[in-house]
């Protein structure tokens, strides 16, 4: 039953596990579901989707699977039917009429109580059995009754508005959770949450320190015989270097990079956080400021920072072939370089085994020779929440040698 819905969900990218699916099916067989699509939508989602980030994908799948089925409605649905295909006979109002209309609207507001209106609406809904167009009393289209749609009664009740429980297919259709998707661009808070993952390194390579609680515990258990227990220090040892491209092609992504930057610099739990800028690609110098004024020899990165530093390089990695591979390929007129950029990049990767490249452009646009070449030196990820998470995952796992082709 529904098994293809399971596969559809997975196809849409909702990570449903078999365990979840089985408990969902079990609950259904045991009669915990009301036979209603609304119920299935909300409660099913509670069983199958475990993060709001996937709500949107669930909506899409639900829409595709159940979209064809007519949802039994709250009474509004019935009403909406009557309002389909409004009469195409609405007069166009000129500005004078519009003004009068506005005035009437105000008047109506003053004289009518919304609650009273709602009550009338419900009553009339009970009485009314069929579609109604025009006229002044019933719920319908094109008329002047306060109830209905496409009509000209000022301030009346517009049928088709929000209800606390819309039919499920409609909610799915709305895709209200689109903004919670993980693959959209990051904001500062989200970025911080992602960067917090770097805290997992905390106990890495730490010194030993006395665990007092455990020591007391152990000692007491031994009946007073002192027994010292040591534990790994919980100090955070993460050190970060952020290298950011400020080249012209990065201009559209400035804000995005700023967010990453501000998130990273607001993180208090890094032991050390250094940042440098470069223009298009890295040569013998990097810069301490965005305007590329205060230069620091790239060589210094190697002498000042040990290989435990994690390096994030942010850039679109798109440039002219010569900028990456040629001596004196640097795009700046006044700069010369006696070693091609690619050599510097390889040296960075060699010295800092934990380094990744974050690319603000979409993966689909990475099909470019310099992007490819750089992607072979550094593991490359999209600058999105998901990409950042993957990048951090790859940083926390053991460093891999650069991919060879």
């Amino acid at each position: 039953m529904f098994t293809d819905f399971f596969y559809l969900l997975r196809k849409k990218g909702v990570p449903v596990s078999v365990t979840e699916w089985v408990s969902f099916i079990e609950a259904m067989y045991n009669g915990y579901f009301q036979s209603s699509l609304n119920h299935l939508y909300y409660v099913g989602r509670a069983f199958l989707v475990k993060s709001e980030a996937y709500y949107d994908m669930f909506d899409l799948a639900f829409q595709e699977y159940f979209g064809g089925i007519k949802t039994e409605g709250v009474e509004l649905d019935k009403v909406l039917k009557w309002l389909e295909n409004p009469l195409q006979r609405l007069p166009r109002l000129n500005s004078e009429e519009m003004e009068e209309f506005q005035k009437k609207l105000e008047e109506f507001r003053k004289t009518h109580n919304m609650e009273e209106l709602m009550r009338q609406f419900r009553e009339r809904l009970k009485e009314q059995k069929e579609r109604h167009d025009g006229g002044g009393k019933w719920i319908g289209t094109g008329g002047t009754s306060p109830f209905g749609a496409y009509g000209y009664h000022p301030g009346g009740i517009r049928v088709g508005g929000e209800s606390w429980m819309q039919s499920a297919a409609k909610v799915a259709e709305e895709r209200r959770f689109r903004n919670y998707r993980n693959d959209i661009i990051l904001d500062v808070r989200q970025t911080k949450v992602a960067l917090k993952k770097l805290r997992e390194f905390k106990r890495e390579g730490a010194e030993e320190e006395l665990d007092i609680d455990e020591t007391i515990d152990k000692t007491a258990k031994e009946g007073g015989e002192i027994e010292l227990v040591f534990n790994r220090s919980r100090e955070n040892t993460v050190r970060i270097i952020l290298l950011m491209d400020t080249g012209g092609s990065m201009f559209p992504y400035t804000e995005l990079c700023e967010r990453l930057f501000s998130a990273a610099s607001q993180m208090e739990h890094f032991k050390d956080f250094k940042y440098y800028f470069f223009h298009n690609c890295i040569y013998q110098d990097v810069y301490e400021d965005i305007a590329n004024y205060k230069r620091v020899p790239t060589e210094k990165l190697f002498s000042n920072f040990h290989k435990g530093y994690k390096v994030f390089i942010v850039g679109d990695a798109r440039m002219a072939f010569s900028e990456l591979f040629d001596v004196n390929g640097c795009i700046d007129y006044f700069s010369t370089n006696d070693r091609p950029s690619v050599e510097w990049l390889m040296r960075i990767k060699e010295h800092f085994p934990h380094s990744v490249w974050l690319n603000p452009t979409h993966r689909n646009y990475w099909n470019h020779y310099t992007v490819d070449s750089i992607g072979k030196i550094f593991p490359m990820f999209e600058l999105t929440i998901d990409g950042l998470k993957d990048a951090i995952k790859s940083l926390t796992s053991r460093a891999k040698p650069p991919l060879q082709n």
Partner: protein
Amino acid sequence: MGNVVLGYKGSDDYIASRPLMEIVNVSVALGKPLVIKGEPGTGKTLLAHSIATALNKRLIVWNIKSTTKARDGLYVYDTVQRLNDARFKDKDISDIRKYIKPGKLGQAFISDEQVVLLIDEIDKADIEFPNDLLNELDEMSFHIPELDEEVAAKHRPVVVITSNSEKELPDAFLRRCIFHYIEFPDVEMMERIVKVHFPDIETKLVREAIKRFYWIREVDGLRKKPSTSELLDWIKALALGGISVDKISSEIPFLGTLLKNELDTDRFIKVSNSHGGFGLKRRG
């Protein structure tokens, strides 16, 4: 079989949306922990209180802090007390049982009647914390090695877990739970929420205030959007201050109750000025 008995329908002081009610009922019926996420101020914590009130059950709250360990929730073996007692001859220390105190989860298990257990802000704890509770929540039992005893729940507690998504919860943990994300309430819902808190305040004032409130929430680039609790404070202030409805639409009195950050206030004033003053974005 069809319908589950709708046990939970919200309580007097808490408005739950219909989907949420049904999800609560299913999770109570199945005895599965319910994980609740949502923006601050959407009533995650209050939900547990409301369930306890509505189902007339005792509520046990386990507030999670960054230092909380999973074992704290099960039981604490007070070794220091025992060591201390051992120094004097007047106490019998041979019975370990006297020094084992149940934690919040343990209390929920040994309670003689079903209770509601709220594990509040689970994401505050260490990233491994939820995983350490996997088995305990799944089987609703744990082992005390000191006594070599199994503590099993007499009645499966109704477990509500809230998270602010500061840290993501591990998949293995989530798989065993039922999940719901509380959306920020829409206007209609908000009106009902306000009504529950202040039944006496004039409807017109509430409407106008809510309209303003949503407008402020939509201002771009606020660091902290005002949430339900701020709205409630604001409406209370408005009512106490005897502010007339017209005044709310022409200016925003007591802005400080809504926006608590200086930068936000500046930002808001800038935006509202660029819209040609307050109150022009009215829609019929």
